[in-house]
């Protein structure tokens, strides 16, 4: 299981782990050094990384991945309600149920490719979203969202300890999962996922997925049954999303249907493309950048802008505040849209392509650049 990874790949995993684990200190100067945001980086990093296994390797663009995120969250909260506040079973349930869900959706959706596949996945996700609001209310608690209550059976916990006052907290064998312990739990999950993704990228299986993206017809006439390959990739990617969903519930034990909405599915597409489709690290970077800017830009309001432009004369200040006001606060999605457009037009390979270009400009490499997006981060010595 642990053999056969090259020395560079081990260094990559080690480096990645260090960067993630020290991020509470390194990101503090940027105003991101607090657990609520840091664990968001990890959770969406896992989500995007999983999405990239499907989209980046096989080229199949799923527009309904948020459904798996939602299923993961619901499954985890139910585990808290029915069994125990321990997060390990919750995560296992989240991944398992998302996986089962992915088998069903993948089996049907993968009968088509290209835009038809995207539309099918989108339809499934919107269906799940609407069902969660309507007929599935007994499971999802509809608009209110699924929450912990004092009446929850919690059979395993209650068999061993008498419940305390108020709602219990999620925990890992006694360590409460709020604040930094919560972040470190997510961080470890992210590092494990990174390791697994690296293994998949470096495996014959990963190579077959890339080959399907490159020329599915050739794959068929070469003797491969491509459907099970695609389904496996779809399920793996759904399980990553389920893990991300359950981690959301771990850090904040409630689940709402809006997690499955198409905007959430669209967001992970943006993260992956922004970071660099098909690269190992790109999607995690993309997720981090989007969540960071969401946090920074959406916190701006007119008062802060007034202060920012206080050096301007009144008339000019009003115009400046009005104009920049469009891009911050509630309007930060406009900023995201503009950034996304610029990236797609000028850097189709995303942030990773940008880094590769800078690296080449500095005379560091003779890598093939845009043609092989994987080389930048993944194969520093080749």
């Amino acid at each position: 299981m642990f053999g056969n990874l090259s020395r560079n790949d081990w260094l990559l995993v080690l480096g990645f782990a260090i960067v993630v684990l020290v991020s509470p200190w390194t990101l503090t100067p940027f105003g991101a050094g607090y657990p609520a945001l840091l664990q968001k980086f990890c959770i969406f990093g896992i989500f995007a990384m999983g999405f990239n296994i499907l989209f980046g390797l096989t080229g199949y663009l799923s527009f309904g991945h948020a459904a798996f995120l939602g299923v993961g969250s619901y499954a985890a909260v139910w585990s808290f309600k029915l069994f125990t506040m321990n997060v390990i079973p919750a995560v296992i349930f989240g991944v398992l149920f998302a996986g089962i869900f992915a088998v069903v959706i993948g089996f049907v959706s993968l009968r088509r490719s290209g835009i038809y596949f995207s539309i099918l996945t989108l339809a499934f996700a919107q269906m799940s979203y609407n069902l969660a609001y309507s007929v599935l209310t007994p499971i999802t608690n509809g608009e209110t969202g699924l929450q912990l209550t004092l009446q929850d059976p919690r059979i395993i916990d209650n068999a061993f300890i008498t419940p305390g006052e108020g709602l219990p907290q999620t925990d890992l064998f006694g360590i409460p999962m709020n604040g930094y312990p919560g972040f470190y739990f997510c961080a470890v999950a992210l590092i494990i996922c990174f390791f697994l993704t690296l293994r998949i990228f470096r495996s014959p299986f990963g190579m077959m997925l890339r080959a399907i993206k490159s020329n599915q017809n050739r794959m068929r006439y070469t003797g491969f049954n491509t459907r099970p390959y695609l389904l496996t990739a779809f399920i793996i990617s759904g399980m990553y999303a389920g893990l991300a969903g359950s981690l959301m519930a771990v850090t904040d034990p409630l689940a709402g249907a809006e997690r499955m909405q198409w905007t959430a599915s669209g967001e992970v597409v943006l993260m992956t493309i922004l970071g660099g489709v098909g690269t190992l690290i790109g999607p995690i970077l993309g997720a981090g950048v989007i969540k960071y800017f969401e946090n920074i830009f959406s916190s701006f309001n007119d008062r802060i802008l007034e202060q920012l432009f206080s050096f301007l004369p009144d008339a000019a200040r009003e115009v400046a505040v009005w104009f920049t006001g469009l891009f911050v606060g509630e309007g930060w999605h406009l900023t995201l849209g503009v950034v996304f457009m610029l990236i797609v037009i000028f850097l189709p390979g995303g942030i990773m392509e940008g880094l590769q270009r800078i690296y080449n400009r500095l005379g560091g490499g003779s890598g093939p650049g845009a043609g092989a997006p994987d080389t930048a981060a993944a194969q520093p010595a080749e």
Partner: protein
Amino acid sequence: MTTASENIVLHVADVSKSFGGLKALSDVDLQVREGTVHAIIGPNGAGKSTLLNVCIGRLKPTTGHVVFNGQTLDQHQPHEINQLGVSRVFQTPEIFADLTLLDNVMIPAFAKRDGAYRFNAMAALSGQADIRTEAEEVLQDIGLLEKSNQIAGSLSRGDKRRLEMAMCLIQKPKLLLLDEPTAGMARHDTNMTIELLKRIKKRGMTKVIIEHDMHVVFSLADRISVLAQGRIIAEGTPEEVRNSPKVKEAYLGEAH
């Protein structure tokens, strides 16, 4: 070996194929013997490529059967037909244009070793030394080894064709189907391809080859079938076909 050479590897049994009102193949009957090179020639639109498409499962015959090694292929998917031992070189090269040459050749080797599906996501590519060595040998064989780390899409048309041939050869198929392997090649590349095909012939691989270039056909083929308007109008050794008046009229007449 003498008995083996009598074995029929591929039997196209009374196959017809219609597209709407157009009959692309009419009662084509073709037997390919083990270890031979069987050429199919004929003017454009004669149904040659359709015939190959039927053989690899891309098209299903309207009537008739394709029998490979005694097995009827009616219900087989393309990948199953390949797993039985049929590989094909296409008229326009079908390669993995985004991957390196080495990857392009390793992938078919995995299909040969691991079958139609194998979930080996936790195995490392770098640990597949045997397949890598095999791929490098085949690349050496077709003279593309020094380009093994290039992206396949950057190759010239001739090189792409030879790469595709390597992708088929590494599978050591029982039957290799070649659809105009030298079309659009420069003379030098054509000669290299003929040399390559002659070398493979010595290994006893059965081949069906569609070709326009008579130089290629007559220097390689053991038997020739002439297809015109979806029918086989003549079949025999190169000598017999060359001297057949029917063939001269239908096909060679155009060129001379």
